[in-house]
């Protein structure tokens, strides 16, 4: 049909090709989507600025107030300087990733874009997979870049006080930033796909990150410890910790595994519902 002279394809016009919606093309389409809206840039700039600023601020304040610090605080810092560089920046920066992740899927529903998307890629699970891969990889790469940038900023700031070395055991804490953010991005994306409503999904993920994850440890006894440990974002956050809190029951990598398992479970549910529900 392409070579025919018609209202759509005058002979001078380029032919439309085979037009198969295979996976590589869906990856390209999702990448084009992500880089063609402003919310991506705003969120990533917020992430980068917040993370780098805090990876300077916390060491700076520590150095300035060293004499007033209690011996316990001093001991904790000397034991785990990398964790203290990473955690405050990550705690704030993760909100940008969570919100962007939610928007990547939920905004398709609020704008109606999902209908255009599904017309071009009617195999819905394939579309969700392409979206997940593109977004998680983007956040993973940016996360690793800012992790190392933050590490060097923090190390320079700490210089007058202590030398921070990147021993083999501590590399996890730096790489963990990208790993955590990538998984959190995916987790949020899946949540957006399940809730299909931008405001609702943002409320959900922010409540989980800032409120539920902390309040949950107020539950007394063993139950509280289990809930605190296996809450997805707490479990994932352990990847950047050296000495984990007493009420955290598993190791850093196990924690990250729990976060990944939660994400995989919700992803499967999202894929199932995506196919079942009307768009």
């Amino acid at each position, binding site marked *: 049909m392409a070579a025919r002279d018609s209202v759509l*394809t005058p002979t001078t016009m380029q032919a439309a090709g085979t*037009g198969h*919606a295979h996976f590589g*093309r869906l990856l390209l389409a999702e990448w084009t989507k992500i880089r063609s*809206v402003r919310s991506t840039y705003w969120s990533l700039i917020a992430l980068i600025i917040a993370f780098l600023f805090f990876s300077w601020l916390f060491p700076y304040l520590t150095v300035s107030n060293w004499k007033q610090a209690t011996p316990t605080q001093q001991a904790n810092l000397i034991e785990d300087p990398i964790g203290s560089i990473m955690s405050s920046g990550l705690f704030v920066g993760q909100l940008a990733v969570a919100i962007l992740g939610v928007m990547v899927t939920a905004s398709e529903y609020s704008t*109606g874009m999902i209908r255009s998307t599904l017309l071009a890629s*009617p195999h819905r699970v394939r579309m969700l997979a392409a979206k997940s891969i593109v977004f998680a990889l983007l956040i993973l790469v940016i996360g690793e870049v800012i992790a190392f940038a933050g590490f060097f900023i923090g190390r320079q700031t700490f210089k007058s006080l202590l030398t921070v070395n990147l021993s083999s055991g501590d590399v996890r804490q730096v790489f963990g930033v990208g790993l955590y953010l990538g998984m959190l991005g995916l987790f949020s994306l899946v949540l957006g796909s399940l809730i299909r409503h931008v405001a609702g999904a943002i409320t959900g993920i922010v409540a989980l990150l800032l409120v539920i994850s902390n309040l949950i440890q107020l539950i007394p006894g063993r139950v509280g410890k289990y809930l605190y440990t296996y809450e997805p974002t707490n479990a994932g956050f352990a990847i950047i910790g050296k000495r984990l809190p007493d009420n955290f029951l598993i190791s850093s990598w196990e924690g990250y595994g729990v976060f990944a398992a939660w994400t995989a479970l919700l992803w499967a549910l999202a894929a199932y519902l995506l196919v079942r529900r009307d768009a």
Partner: protein
Amino acid sequence: MIQATALTKRYGPRLAVDQADFTVAPGKVTGFLGPNGAGKSTTMRMILGLDRPSSGSVTINGVPYHRLAAPLREVGALLDAKAVHGGRTAYNHLLVLAKANGLPRGRVDAVIDLVGLHSVAKKRSGGFSLGMGQRLGIAAALLGDPGILMFDEPVNGLDPEGILWIRNLMKALAAEGRTVFVSSHLMSEMALTADHLVVIGLGKILADEPMADFIAKNSVSYVRVRSPQMADLGPKLASRGWRIEPQPDASVHVFDAQPAQIGDVAGTAGLWLHELTLVQSSLEEAFMRLTAGSVEYHAGQTGDAGLAGGQRVPDGTAMPGWGTPVPQEIQNSQVKERTQ
């Protein structure tokens, strides 16, 4: 070719589409006509795989939409609701769709020029007017140069020039051998574009026939005659076998006759005529009569006012509720008051 077989969509207790069977053939414009809420959009969304049928099936060239390997190359669709992210430029919106199916970038430029959005292609579509948004939707539908095109209420929001443009575009697409399926709630719009008509009311297919047949079946015409000597003229007209209905305003409606024939009768008898007018009911009236029993949202009792124009109308108020479709065989005659 689009083929629906016993296609049904149920939302809770409500049947949005009820056992719909129809075929949309290539090479012509098929109009999909029905009042608001009749199930047009739901049917179109099921064709496109956006909604799952509760039962029955619908196929595109023999396969369901979700099994199409190259969807945009086979089907292009303009949906009634907005289907774009307002934060993305028109160009990038089309580029995303093109990439998903591996269509060359040149297609994006081509369809942008075709719909006349060149000057705003790099602007974010959130600021577009209704008409511009509609053109962007049409551009997306044409992107893959598809053999099947579906337009849900395409003239909504377009200015007269735009309406003329989309009309001609649809006809040209059909003339190229493509399948064109276009929904509307305006019979007048369909009369100008469609070659074939599928009428839906309350989810049921009420008619599926060529436009010419629909017109022949549903349009009623008569001749309005005024004469100061009606007492003499009346029996002469009746004796020719024409049906005559005296009106309160002293005119007479003559059915089954042409004005010239009536004039000849009067002339031969040497009788005066003061009026001899051919009155044809519009297709809009025929459509309203067909769907009178299946309009979901009635606006009070003003239904009859909309059918005014010298036409005997079935008494809309006599219908026993909107749940009962009008049987086809009584469309041309009066709807008798039915008691429940």
